[in-house]
């Protein structure tokens, strides 16, 4: 099932862990990791190299595919679909033979560039055949992505495949009768609860160790869709789109009480379950869902002062964080506020970037806006500063 040599993947994982532990000091500095490194011939570079190779790879692939289409552009007419399938296969062949088997590329960015383009071209070619059967088309694309996600252990395709399944049911409901349309939220919730359980059960299997990341992605996306399926905002807005009704003020959707309840209960349940079972996926999705639930209620019951809501929400979050940090000063039942070894903290190392991207905007924009207004500078914007 996996395109890569399983032994090599395993050895690579162990080596990377050893590298990280050595950086953090659990493994002594001068310990020799050469033997571990030699156990896997796979080439798997760091994140920057992956980005670079992904960018360049995309240029290269579009050049190659573009060339094919330019050469055969005369007399292409309806044969473009055949050409699309052909180039998709050719790309996959190159990926498997040259990059995976010969050059031992493993998630190098180049793999992804070729793979995503191949999938995209396949999907484009298929669309030519199934223009009028949207639901079947979406389902086929979902299968395509899922198959590729399994074969190449790819997280992005896993997420896309799961999302396409949700889209499939949505399109089915669009064409279906009223009963089906009103059952849609429950269908989505049940299907994705099933996906979640599937991911959770498979994860425990010995054989699944090569897809752990993808199974986690599947669980995350599934939990998100279970929540979104029952979220009042989603049900109401998508529901009125589906049924082509404009809800008048005072109108409400059927079973509104149920969806209100779900909007409140699901995030709380996720958070509770996550903390109880030490399941990070539940905690993170729960935090996201809680935020979206607040938004949902504020959307329909707003006092017209979003800034007050934001300020109070900020204060509450700060208060909550301070409370929890104090509570966990000494670990409670093994839950600690300290950073542990070998933790995956990519998101926090990116904090500097995050700060400048989110808050830097506030500074530049806000400061200038307020100041220019007060100072009566015409024109405003950046130009006023250079004299």
């Amino acid at each position, binding site marked *: 099932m996996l395109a890569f040599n399983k032994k090599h993947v395993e050895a690579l994982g162990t080596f990377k*862990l*050893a590298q990280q532990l050595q950086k953090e000091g*659990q*493994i002594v500095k001068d*310990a020799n990791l050469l*033997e571990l490194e030699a156990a896997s011939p796979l080439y798997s*570079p*760091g*994140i*920057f190299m992956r980005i670079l190779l992904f*960018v*360049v*790879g995309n*240029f290269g692939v579009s*050049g190659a595919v573009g*060339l094919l289409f330019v050469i055969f552009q005369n007399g292409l007419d309806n044969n473009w679909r055949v050409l699309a399938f052909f180039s998709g296969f050719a790309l996959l062949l190159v990926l498997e033979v040259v990059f995976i088997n010969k050059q031992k590329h493993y998630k190098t960015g180049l793999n992804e560039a070729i793979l995503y383009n191949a999938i995209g071209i396949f999907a484009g070619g298929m669309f030519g055949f199934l223009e009028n059967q949207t639901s079947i088309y979406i389902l086929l694309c979902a299968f395509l992505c899922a198959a590729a996600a399994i074969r190449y252990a790819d997280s992005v395709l896993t997420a896309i495949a799961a999302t396409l399944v949700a889209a499939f049911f949505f399109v089915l409901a669009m064409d279906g009768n009223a009963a089906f349309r009103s059952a849609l939220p429950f269908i989505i919730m049940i299907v994705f609860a099933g996906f979640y359980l599937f991911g959770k059960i498979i994860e425990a299997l010995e054989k699944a160790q090569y897809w752990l990341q993808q199974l986690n992605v599947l669980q995350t996306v599934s939990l998100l869709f279970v929540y979104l399926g029952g979220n009042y905002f989603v049900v109401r807005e998508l529901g009125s789109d589906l049924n082509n009704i404009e809800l008048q003020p005072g109108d409400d959707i059927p079973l509104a009480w149920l969806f209100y309840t779900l909007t409140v209960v699901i995030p709380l349940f996720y958070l509770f379950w996550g903390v109880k079972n*030490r399941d990070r996926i539940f905690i*993170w999705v729960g*935090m996201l869902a809680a935020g979206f639930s607040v938004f949902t209620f504020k959307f329909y019951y707003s006092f017209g*002062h979003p*800034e007050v809501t*934001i*300020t*109070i929400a*900020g204060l509450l*979050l*700060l*208060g*909550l964080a301070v409370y*929890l*940090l104090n509570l*966990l000063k000494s670990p409670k039942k093994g839950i*600690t506020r300290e950073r*542990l*070894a070998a*933790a995956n903290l990519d998101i*926090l190392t990116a904090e*500097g970037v*995050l*700060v*400048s*991207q989110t*808050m*830097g*905007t*506030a*500074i*530049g*924009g*806000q*400061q200038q806006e307020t*100041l*220019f207004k*007060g*100072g009566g500078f015409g024109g405003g*914007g*950046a130009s*006023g*500063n*250079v004299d």
Partner: protein
Amino acid sequence: MTEKQLDVLYEKGLLPEADYQKLRAIAQRKIFSVYGELRTLLYLGVLLFSTGAGIFIYNNIGQIGHYLSLFVLLAATVGCFWFVTKKQLPFSKSRTESANPYFDYSLLLGCLLVVIDLGYLQFLFGWFTNYVSWLSLFTAVVFFYFAYRQDHLGVLSLGITALASFWGLAISPANFYAFNFFEQPQLHWVAVFFGAGIFAAALLLERFGIKAHFTKTYLNFGVLIGFFGSTSMLFNGSDENYAVAIGQVLAAAILGFYSYKKETVLYMIYAYIFGFIAFTYILVVATKSENLTFWMLYLMAVSFGFVKSIMTVRKRFKHDS
């Protein structure tokens, strides 16, 4: 990290018994850290509170008790900085750990409040009407001071942003995407020189060993601002800008070489993208070719050549991540 991997490392004698047991407990989730989750809560809290308070004041100017709200804001700012000063560790030229879980966020909130304070003072008293750009400079100085004293990358980014806005450059993602962060043509050159200046300053500071881990942040800003400046000159200018394009190719080559020297691929990404744009620009302007086959071949050849060359030197970037 799985138990199986830990077993392998332990059996190979790489992990001491004590560490092995500790790591096993983590892998089995007997110990569970909410470090990342709590920091995210603090971060979101600071973000929402400072944004909300800023908008609130902006919208309600003239309606709420001015002196009271100004007092509350100033008190909060002073409170943040008081906490930071109380908990701070002695200054060091190298990286320091934060003294306390709240430390980083208290500092960040304080710095963001400074901006709100200044804007509010201007509203109330109009003190800074004639010194608007100097206000940016003042903010930048405050931010840089705290970034260096308390070792805070986020505040450093804010400082660079403020300094750029002193020169008239509004850096924000939104502006980047819309390509309109230069409303005036002369700002292109300002951006190029600002970028180059930041770059040079960062290398100088690194040479003196002052907070060497800040270099990456500086260089990122410098490279992006500089290249965005020159690239938008290529596309917004009316005439054929050979000189700028050649300059950009050279700058990209130098940056690529620097990246190679430093054994990090990060700058290679920028070097490739901006070098590619400028080189293609020269080719387009020089040949004026509309032959698609030629361009597709060009795209393929450039990518192939680049991948090939970077693969031959990939050993150099082994420890980069």
